[in-house]
């Protein structure tokens, strides 16, 4: 096969191409760059300078060193499924795509760990070890295409994080290319608590602003002996919320506890995986319990009792694995399902103390009425992680901005009750200003001070995660106007 030739005079493009070997591992022409203008957060778009596809850690290191030496802004990208804009090249970055680094390097079942490259797809790991009875726990809804490198950057969660924790609870070691090109190893062989400040924990969830992860050691778990899912329909959201609290208070730790409201049900039932949820109910709960089979029945019975006490219209267990899987497919494709009832949607990611659920849902309903936009709610009720989906039509002038402001108002509602602005999607560029809902200036500076230790030139993924000084007042003003729209 003939090697593609570089057709540009830009010396940086030529030099970057040399590092990755040949012209087929770099994109630089405008038409080729279109797909890289944004990630799963499509509201903002910006063109990168180039996209390079390194094949190993040394190439990543050399690319980073080149960018650093030449003052070229750069960022890392996995599958581009991020929902907060963390991989959007705001500053005309060189995008270092890690999709070619997609190997499963090692599986050590006895010591319950696996080593993967960052471009390795989340679900592939579980698929490759499930025959031996093992799995990788973090299960973001995009797990069939998102990469574990991206999961580390975002500290991704998922439906089953209630019992098993989010990505950070499953990362045992990292190889990282620092923003100057140096390669460091953090707990190379997955040993716990290595002496020193916990950089592993700090790097996880740092949204690609402290370094580029090039190798990841993850914990793998033994698949539970048994699992059972219960579905419950409620005529009042309050009853559903109360049932959630009652289940947790009963000392049950469900593997997952999910809720969808009426608008969300309308969407999932209109999309690719309908399961026959009644359209007139206010809320559906999906409750999964897993563990030792001998203990499951007792917990399921307790859950059924709790739901009945809370005026459930109908509650039942999945009759077989097929039904269980169909309920989960229906839930996990919930975001995309919004496309069936709205041209565009914006998903938010607030977290609240569980007990505040009814109060916050009322507030979100108010925000919906005030903005004139429908808001569907799909959420991880067990851990209080709400995903209000603001439905809008980008073709209508001004509606995108209105949706952004309604989303922000939902986050304010979460922050007001002692919650936070993001539980698993990250801040990215989407929620930079909302960081002020939960942190004061000193606390934000405390964080940017840490960034300076790793990323002193701020060439790596600049402009993400933290609010821009001075914009705060302006945004608040616009928001105030938006929330008073009748």
């Amino acid at each position, binding site marked *: 096969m003939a090697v593609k030739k570089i057709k540009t005079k830009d010396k940086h493009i030529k030099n970057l191409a040399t590092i990755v070997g040949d012209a087929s591992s770099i994109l630089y022409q405008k038409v080729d760059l279109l797909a890289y203008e944004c990630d799963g957060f499509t509201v903002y778009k910006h063109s990168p300078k180039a996209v390079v596809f390194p094949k190993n850690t040394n190439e990543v290191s050399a690319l980073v060193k080149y960018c650093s030496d030449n003052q070229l802004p750069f960022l890392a990208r996995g599958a581009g499924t991020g929902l907060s804009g963390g991989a959007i090249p705001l500053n005309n970055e060189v995008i270092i795509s890690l999709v070619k680094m997609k190997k499963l390097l090692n599986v050590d079942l006895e010591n319950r760990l696996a080593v993967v490259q960052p471009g390795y797809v989340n679900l592939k790991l579980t698929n490759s070890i499930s025959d031996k009875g093992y799995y990788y726990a973090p299960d973001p809804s995009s797990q069939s295409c998102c990469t574990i490198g991206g999961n580390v950057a975002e500290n991704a969660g998922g439906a089953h994080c209630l019992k098993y924790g989010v990505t950070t609870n499953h990362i045992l070691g990292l190889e990282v290319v620092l923003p100057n090109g140096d390669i460091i190893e953090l707990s190379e062989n997955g040993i716990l608590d290595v002496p020193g400040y916990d950089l592993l924990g700090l790097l996880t969830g740092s949204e690609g602003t402290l370094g580029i992860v090039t190798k990841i050691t993850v914990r793998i778990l033994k698949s539970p002996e048994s699992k059972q899912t219960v579905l419950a329909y409620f005529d009042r959201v309050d009853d559903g919320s109360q049932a959630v609290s009652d289940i947790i208070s009963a*000392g049950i730790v469900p593997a997952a506890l999910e809720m969808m409201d009426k608008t969300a049900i309308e969407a999932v039932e209109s999309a690719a995986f309908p399961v026959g949820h009644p359209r007139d109910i206010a809320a559906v709960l999906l409750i999964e319990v897993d563990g030792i089979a001998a203990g499951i029945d*007792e917990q399921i019975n307790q859950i059924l009792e709790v739901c009945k006490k809370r005026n459930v219209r109908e509650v039942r267990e999945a009759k077989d694995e097929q039904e269980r899987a169909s309920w989960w497919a229906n839930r996990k494709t919930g975001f995309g399902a919004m496309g069936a009832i709205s041209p565009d949607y914006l998903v938010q990611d607030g977290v609240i103390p569980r007990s505040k659920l009814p109060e916050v849902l009322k507030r979100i309903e108010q925000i919906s009425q005030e903005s004139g936009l429908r808001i569907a709610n799909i959420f991880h009720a067990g851990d209080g992680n709400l995903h209000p989906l603001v439905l809008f039509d980008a073709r209508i002038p001004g509606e995108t901005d209105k949706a952004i402001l309604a989303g922000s108002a939902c986050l304010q509602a979460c922050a007001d009750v002692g919650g936070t602005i993001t539980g698993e999607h990250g801040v990215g560029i989407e929620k930079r200003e909302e960081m002020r809902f*939960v942190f004061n200036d000193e606390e934000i500076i405390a964080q940017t001070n840490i960034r300076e230790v790793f990323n002193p030139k701020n060439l790596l993924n600049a402009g993400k995660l933290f609010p821009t000084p001075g914009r705060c007042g302006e945004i608040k003003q616009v928001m105030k106007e938006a929330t008073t729209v009748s």
Partner: protein
Amino acid sequence: MIATELLINLESIIPRERIKSGQNQHHHLGNNAQVSVFPTTEEEISLILKYANNHGKKISVMGGGTKRGFGGLTESVDILLSLSLYKGIVEHTVGDMTLTVKAGTTFYELQEYLAKHKQKVSLDPTWPEYSTIGGIVVANENGPKRLGYGSSRDVVIGLRNIYPDGSIIRSGGKVVKNVAGYDMNKIFIGSMGTLGVVSEVTVKLRPVAKYESLILISFKEGSIDEILMFSKALLDSVMEPVALELLSPTLSEKLTGQCTFTVAISFEDVESSVHYQEKFVKGIQPSGTEMDILSESEAQYFWHLFYTICPNGAKESAGEETEAALKIGVVNLNVLSIIKESQLLQDSYNLVVESHGGLGHGLCQVILKGSSQKVVLAIRQMRETVLKLDGYLVVKHLPFELRQKVDVWGGKPSHFFLLEGIKSKIDPQKILNPKRFIGGI
């Protein structure tokens, strides 16, 4: 003279009755100070730090004092900041299963309070009656049940940290899932108090298990391979032990009366599940071993004893014998090699060596007692063994004098400059717990 000036200055911040001079000057574990202060408000802590930062005074931070022998190459600093009076529950929403508590609250007090609500903090530190939640978090202390429940890094969801300049910096929050900004909690957990004073800790809680049992299987001496086979079979099953701990013969004798390698397996779940798992273990019990099943209060009593085996820095010196405690991290199944080696050290150095390690998480604790010279030699030999296994060894407890002879943390990692960088951003004057942490941080 200097102490007088220090006293006068501190009296402008905190009432005289909560300032003590002379009390903490000559402890054999070090981490001493000219003056001890016992703040009861966050404002007082903040003012003390600010004062020290502005006047170049060094501070040693202490909770219950159990970890006084853990690190520290400065025999005495200016101020010992004790959080032992800064205690109490700040906020507990039962239904949310989260709790905020002041750092000086002892673990026992905390669990007693939570037990009324059938909830718990799922950590299992040593000396719960003495250890404070703040000390447990900043020293990243945990026990065998880490296998089932994780460590502080899995349990802590928010912290209030008082920086050396007196500012109060919150990290994390009060909800169980949170990715807003950097996960700053992580750098304070295990930081040995070198970055800030943690004043409040917010944790996620778990329900108290409805039933628990502990299986003790004693293996004949020298049957390491048999233990390995058994552990692999259990770990590869769908059973869900919350602890799978190998005890050395010496430790086993102390706790169970049997001087054999013993595997302790803990199950916590609904009763039917626990019994089912006990039955499974019986089914794979290797021949020639003895099995004992302790349930509920018997199991709890075993753990109660277990958490007192480590030297306690808050108690006076045990006597002429030197006591040391080591934390060793290796890849999970290499725990067998460490526990075996510890038993050999006992014989070759004429020491009493009690050790245990988690076969599902790779963390071991080795406790040595004997002459100081031999303890030091044994630590060095153990470190060599650990390094051959690509693990690490940290000295958790050793008298101050001996800490000059043994590197507590065992050398600097190649990325040490990042650790130094973090320290200098937060504590540029190096006033907090000087030389307490890795590489002299």
